[in-house]
């Protein structure tokens, strides 16, 4: 008997009226569930998890809380509300009505963008599939599950676009999104950072703070897309992405807080003796995750980014709020780059430097969280400051990948850099220590692992000892 997918798949895209699309999604859904069972959070299908489920795209609908078994999560398809008068804000097509269908000549470009974005969503679920085993509390366990479900929903959002607008190629791409796996040597995920492991919770919080924030900026640029269904999908996804970054920001903050408490209590910097993570190690993790996330923005000079902009498929962050001509063919932009082994400031065509511009917006945004974390340290009366490393530090992509730069921006030889790298990036020993803290999951309501402080507030204002996950 046919399942009623219009009930199973909450949506605001009038799915019930489109038989063809329904059939396509009917075919895809069992594959998705198979993937979730084999590659999603390990051994969790029977848990009841206190999750937020979006059931519509309006203010009341996107945050419905209740206990859900994750395989039964209602992965829905939501697009932000449509503005019937929306026009493309930039590029050669500036001022023309936004496209409701994919323009033929942009078909493969848009497909590639959607696939690249879509590929990161299941990738991070795969990267995080073992974290539940070592959760520092029920609260944190629930949060990682919430993120996993929402990444799953973001995958649905991209798959919906592929199915609805890209024909057979789109369906094939949708299947490939489930066939590539993070870290798989034969079928890796598209972007390098999504093939790395997320081995511990400090890495997880750093990842959600820094790498998901890259996701925010990519989504925000795609939310400016002239292809309206993509723009509307991304706008809704941004609401959920904000929660992921909140988990990262508050997670690091709670670790810092716990570390400061122990530093004060024992009047020492070496909190490892007391089972917490020292500030110096936190700084090293921060250096690592910030630098690899910067690479996700791509080359400083990018033909692709310029083409996307000119064609109207991907804009700048908050495009409509920028006060310029939104065409940029005659404009320039100042970027830092490398010349004769030195970092120099250069004026370059604005169109070619859109990646760098987005990276600037991102760096500025990253700095905000650090102010919060440093306030915790300052409030504890401690003399230490977490810092974002220089953007040229530890880069693998772009002009800076050619040189060796310390976190404070000093250019040096490869030998000097290697000799000091242990001071800047987590060493095997640091990682082993952090891993050693990741004991069995703390599953007693209201209890927290020793190395992290409780949150200020519970999810949906629940009390501290709330049972976020029932194991059954």
């Amino acid at each position, binding site marked *: 008997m046919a399942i009623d997918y219009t009930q199973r798949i909450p949506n605001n895209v009038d799915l019930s009226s489109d038989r063809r699309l329904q059939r396509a999604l009917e075919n895809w859904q069992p594959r998705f569930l198979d993937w979730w069972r084999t590659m999603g959070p390990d051994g969790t299908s029977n848990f009841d998890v206190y999750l937020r489920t979006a059931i519509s795209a309006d203010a009341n609908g996107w945050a419905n809380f209740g206990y859900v078994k994750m395989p039964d999560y209602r992965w829905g398809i939501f697009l932000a509300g449509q503005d019937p008068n929306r026009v493309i804000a930039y590029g050669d097509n500036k001022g023309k009505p936004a496209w409701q269908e994919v323009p033929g000549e942009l078909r493969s470009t848009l497909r590639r963008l959607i696939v690249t974005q879509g590929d990161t969503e299941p990738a991070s679920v795969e990267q995080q599939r073992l974290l539940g085993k070592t959760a520092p509390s029920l609260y944190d366990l629930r949060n990682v599950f919430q993120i996993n479900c929402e990444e799953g929903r973001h995958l649905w959002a991209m798959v919906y676009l592929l199915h609805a607008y890209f024909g057979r190629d789109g369906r094939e791409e949708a299947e490939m999104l489930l066939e590539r796996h993070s870290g798989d*040597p034969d079928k890796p995920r598209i972007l390098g950072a999504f093939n790395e492991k997320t081995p511990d919770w400090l890495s997880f919080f750093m990842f959600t703070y820094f790498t998901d924030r890259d996701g925010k900026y990519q989504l925000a640029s795609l939310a400016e897309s002239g292809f309206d269904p993509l723009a509307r999908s991304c706008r809704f996804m941004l609401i959920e992405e904000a929660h992921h970054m909140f988990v990262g920001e508050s997670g690091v903050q709670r670790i810092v807080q716990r570390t400061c408490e122990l530093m004060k209590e024992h009047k020492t910097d070496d909190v490892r003796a007391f089972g917490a993570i020292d500030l110096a190690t936190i700084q090293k993790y921060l250096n690592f995750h910030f630098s690899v996330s910067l690479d996700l923005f791509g080359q400083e000079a990018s033909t692709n980014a310029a083409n996307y902009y000119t064609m109207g498929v991907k804009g700048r962050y908050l495009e409509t709020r920028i006060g310029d001509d939104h065409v940029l063919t005659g404009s320039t932009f100042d970027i830092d780059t490398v010349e004769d082994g030195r970092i120099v400031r250069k004026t370059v065509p604005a169109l070619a430097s859109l990646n760098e511009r987005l990276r600037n917006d991102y760096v500025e945004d990253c700095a905000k969280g650090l102010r919060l974390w440093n306030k915790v340290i300052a409030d504890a009366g401690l003399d230490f400051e977490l810092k974002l490393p220089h953007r040229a530090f530890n880069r693998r992509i772009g002009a800076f990948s050619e040189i060796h730069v310390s976190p404070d921006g000093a250019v040096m030889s490869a030998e000097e850099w290697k000799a000091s790298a242990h001071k800047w990036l987590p060493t095997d020993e640091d990682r082993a220590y952090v891993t050693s803290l990741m004991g069995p999951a703390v599953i007693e309501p209201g209890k927290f692992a020793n190395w992290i402080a409780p949150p200020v507030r519970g999810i949906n204002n629940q009390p501290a000892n709330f049972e976020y996950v029932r194991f059954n």
Partner: protein
Amino acid sequence: MADALIDFRTQPSRYKHWKLSTEKGVAYLTMDVNEDGGLRPGYKLKLNSYDLGVDIELADAIQRLRFEHPEIGAVVIRSQRDRIFCSGANINMLGLSSHDHKVNFCKFTNETRLAIEDATEHSDQTYICSINGIAAGGGYELALACDQILLADDGSSAVSLPELPLLAVLPGTGGLTRLVDKRLVRRDHADFFCTTAEGLRGKRAQQWRLVDKLIPPSKLADETKKIAEDVARKSKRPKDAKGIALPDVERTFDGDTLRYPHLTVEIDRERRAAHFRLGGPTAPAPADAAAVHAQGAAFWPLALARALDDAMMHLRLNETEIGTWVLHSQGDPAAVEAFDALLAREASNWLVREIVLYWKRTLKRLDVSSRSLIALVEPGSCFAGTLLELVLAADRSYMLDGVFEGSNLPAATIRLTGMNFGPYPMGNGLTRLATRFLAEPEHVDVLKKDIGQALDSGQCDDLGLVTFTPDDIDWEDEVRLAIEERAGFSPDGLIGMESNLRFAGPETMETKIFARLSAWQNWIFQRPNATGPEGALKLYGTGKQAKYDRKRA
């Protein structure tokens, strides 16, 4: 400022972009293009993209493997770079290059691709391409020249010909022709493939015959090795033979004269002509293949072919305004005939076979050179057999009737040998004689009866082997006028006319590749839709969108 001289002579110890290694009968040609190693300043060879310099090394490696490595039965072309095989010809380089450099570059890369196919087909040195990532444009065309294409099956490795959608031009190295003529890809599939910038990957690439085999990336290196070793085992190349070394071709510049051991090229700038003076053998033909082997690169036919090849490449790239090549020879025709007899007698020897195949390719290089070719058969010349092919390749030939007054040089004669009737086919698959006498195929059989005869100018005229046979009264003016007249015509017009007339007879994949290459280069490449201020090629990389003149011409 004049561009630095382009030198085609190289060897593995000087390669900047390739690594050549051999193991168990298999050679591995590994591409790792040095971004900063471009032939000229102004562009970076990113993502394993190539320029002429990269292809000169490839051509050298292909040539060396044939002569220096008789034990090698299979050659693997692969990339050193993670998830990138090769992204084709460098676009910025094309943007900075003059039209003639682009055309010369494409012609040379085409000759190199054909050399790969020639090695596979005739030398039993089979090329296998192992693609570990993106193979775009010229990168996939390089793969197309190989006998087998292996593709990593990782969901992202793809083959593509994005020239039309991205740059508004066409693949320049025979890509379109090889798709449908060699790999027999269905034309509708090819149509879709060539309009999809990102190309195809995985199952569909295989089902559509774009690649032969899909291999998981973790097994790609080992599987490639296994396949290549299997192929190498089946090759009939002599596994225990020793190769001969190919040292740098010796040459010296003396003003406008370029000297090689058996060839001198004199440039007459006023008439925009280069006089090639080929020297006949300076010693008798050795007795057998073993003796040929002992002489190695100094063996006269090989030394001369290498000199001629290098001279042609030098003039094509570095002397673009020298529009007419005048072909002379000097020596004893009987001695040349003796060398031809040796080549025929020892045809089954691997080294002799390579030398004959090399002459075949060198003569083809002459056929497709965009220069007017005029052969002068003068007293004292030695246009016999192999060297006679140059006269037959020429657009026009003059043979002196009689002798010059006051000269003791013997009257010019021409000799046919067996080499004129098979071993040196043109791109169209026919011998130069068969192509010359398309109207009367039986005439070629008649000519066979004259093999070994010293044919004088009257006989050559009767037999149709030369164009004109002026006597010493008319000679100087006739020849001078022919060369001066040539220098006065439009070079573009001449190139078009000559290449239309040179390749009569059947079409082959090879003739199609060169014919279509010149058609598209001289038309599509020149049209504003590609190279105008708002053309796609011009704007590539700027983020600006091309504006097309939508009229279909």
